[in-house]
């Protein structure tokens, strides 16, 4: 019971990782001009960058040092959980002149997250 109480007080925060995020273009009313796709899996990064940083968190040397400093001086923030690899998607849409365009947009999908 004491352990549960303690967990409630200091909930265990998940490590930095990729989470599901489906962007539905109708939610932002962009479906009026984007023909395809109707939406896409964009994903997002969230989670802690704890001390000591494990290997799988893709940390840079700077992030490792910053996390180390944070462990002794909490006024320095921890490294941030951010996208480290992104990929492109193709959109088929009508522009402001009603011309139909198929264009490749880079950095639209999170492929990997890490501490930076």
């Amino acid at each position, binding site marked *: 019971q004491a352990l549960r109480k303690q967990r409630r007080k200091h909930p265990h925060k998940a490590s930095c990782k990729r989470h599901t995020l489906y962007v539905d273009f109708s939610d932002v009313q962009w479906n009026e001009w984007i023909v395809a796709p109707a939406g896409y899996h964009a994903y997002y990064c969230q989670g802690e960058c704890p001390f000591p940083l494990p290997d799988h968190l893709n940390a840079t040397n700077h992030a490792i040092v910053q996390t180390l400093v944070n462990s002794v001086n909490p006024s320095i923030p921890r490294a941030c959980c951010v996208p480290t690899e992104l990929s492109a998607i193709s959109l088929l849409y009508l*522009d*402001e002149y009603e011309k139909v365009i198929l264009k*490749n*947009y880079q950095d639209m999908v999170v492929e990997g997250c890490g501490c930076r």
Partner: protein
Amino acid sequence: GAAGLIPEVGRRKFSESGKQSPERSESFLNEFELRLLKMFGLGRRPTPSKNAVVPQYMVDLYHMHSANGDHSTKRTKSMGKHAERAASKANTIRSFHHEESMEALASLKGKTTQQFYFNLTSIPKEELITSAELRIYRDQVIGAAPPNSSALAGGLHRINIYEIFGVPVGSNSTEPLVRLLDTRLVQDSLSRWESFDVSPAVSQWTSGQGPNHGFMVEVLHPEHEEMDSEHSQRRNKHVRVSRSLHQDQDSWPQARPLLVTYGHDGHGDSVLHTRQKR
């Protein structure tokens, strides 16, 4: 705000959050909106009318290049190597219909010529056009010789695509000055889209090296130059170059000529690269 890319709900929530003064929050939102528009390469939010037509070819290209596309389908296979090759260097593919108000149609002695003008001013200056194709739909001529028939030669016609580069000055002739871009001998017994390479002309027009006077399409029957005018007209009607030659008005938007440009704005990979990577 209603005309912009930020939904009204998002604008209202940010303004009401009280983090900024109303003036500053409006300026932040406008700045963010400009970034969104720039990201999409737009000048303002598109507000297409209900009559806006999305060519099936563009939808097919999208499916060909999207991650979920089924590349083994008959439709994507029939799109040909040209589209695939062109798209491998391009990250932007645009389609254009011609300005019907500026078309000039003439039929004489077993041939039909049609002048087209495509307004390409919406292509940004920084976009380098690597390839362009003019697509024209042909309907099967009822009663034409089947492909393996011995009367094959009689069921052929030629389509010539010219770039118009001016009108003769000080001459009585009204014929425009043209140069041949592409030509093909086609069979009457097949219904299909014909794709013609018009890259040299479109590259010149969009790079500012020459004025855009449009194209001239010529349909002629090498074996039937002596045929009577009515017969000739009937055959030429199967090449969908003009609304006036098209019987079914409902299908015209999807059967009319289409100019497709393949370009790269210098940012990121080509559309085909994405597919291969995935």
